[in-house]
């Protein structure tokens, strides 16, 4: 579960159940591991670093030469921001029997979280070869991929909550 609320100073308060923290803490290392020595022939990295010119190898190479490093830095920044802010969490009250932790974020940090969760879902979803069909289906709990599949759904819920919070801040709804 996740709750997000706007604070009076314009920042954000994000709450998670304490029991979820250990799963969340494992995420940054996974993405950083993939980004540390990016293998550009792997499908995960290909998804995280998309092509710009599909039919023009020369322009594609030039585009990537100029921009790939920026994109990598941007992703690493998201990983670092998530890790740093999650580490600064504070234990807070109990709600309906749940022990909660609170993470305080600036608007910029919440946007970085959105990007981080999106990248995490691209990483896991690509690894699982997710399709429109398989995304809709239930997975057999005995399937060895069930853990990652459920994590993908859980992160979708978190990402969706972040998106809705940011939409409200933009006054789009």
């Amino acid at each position, binding site marked *: 579960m996740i709750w997000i609320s706007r604070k009076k100073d314009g920042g954000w308060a994000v709450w998670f159940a304490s029991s979820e923290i250990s799963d969340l803490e494992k995420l940054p290392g996974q993405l950083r591991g993939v980004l540390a020595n990016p293998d550009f022939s792997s499908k995960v990295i290909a*998804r*995280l*670093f*998309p*092509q*710009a*010119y*599909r*039919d023009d190898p*020369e*322009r594609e190479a*030039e*585009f990537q030469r*100029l*921009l790939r490093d*920026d*994109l990598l830095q*941007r992703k690493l920044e998201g990983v670092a921001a998530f890790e740093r802010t999650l580490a600064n969490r504070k234990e807070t009250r109990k709600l309906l029997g749940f022990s909660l932790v609170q993470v305080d974020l600036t608007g910029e940090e919440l946007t970085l979280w*959105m*990007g981080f969760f*999106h*990248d995490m*879902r*691209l990483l896991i*979803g*690509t690894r699982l070869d*997710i*399709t*429109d069909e*398989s*995304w809709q289906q239930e997975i057999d709990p005995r399937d060895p991929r069930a853990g990652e599949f459920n994590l*993908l759904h859980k992160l*979708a819920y978190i*990402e*969706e909550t972040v*998106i*809705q919070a*940011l*939409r409200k801040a*933009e006054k*789009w*709804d």
Partner: protein
Amino acid sequence: MGAEYEPRNGYGNGNAYGSEFHAAPGQAPARTVEPDTEEKSKVDRPWNVVVWNDPITLMSYVVFVFQKLFGYNREKATRLMLEVHHQGRSVVATVDREKGEYYVSRLHGFGLQATIEQTG
């Protein structure tokens, strides 16, 4: 015509989009009008920024990005997102190449699969 209008490499070439047609010395300008227009149209043809479908990305995320990056309203952003979803791709902007590359890099920054291709 020997002049090259399509730069091999657009980067660092400040004149990539506004290339002037240069008539060969001594040639009457009037004669160059027709080929000029024809050749120039290839260089000046705008570029489409295309976003591709991807089963992992949330629909609401795509709408968010289109609104944030292009300033589209919710209706337009949603219509484009649904086009991506149902047709596999959607042209989200038609602009000059420099601007198109900027949009593609921003879309990549948001983790969307975006490409650029010339119209026509």
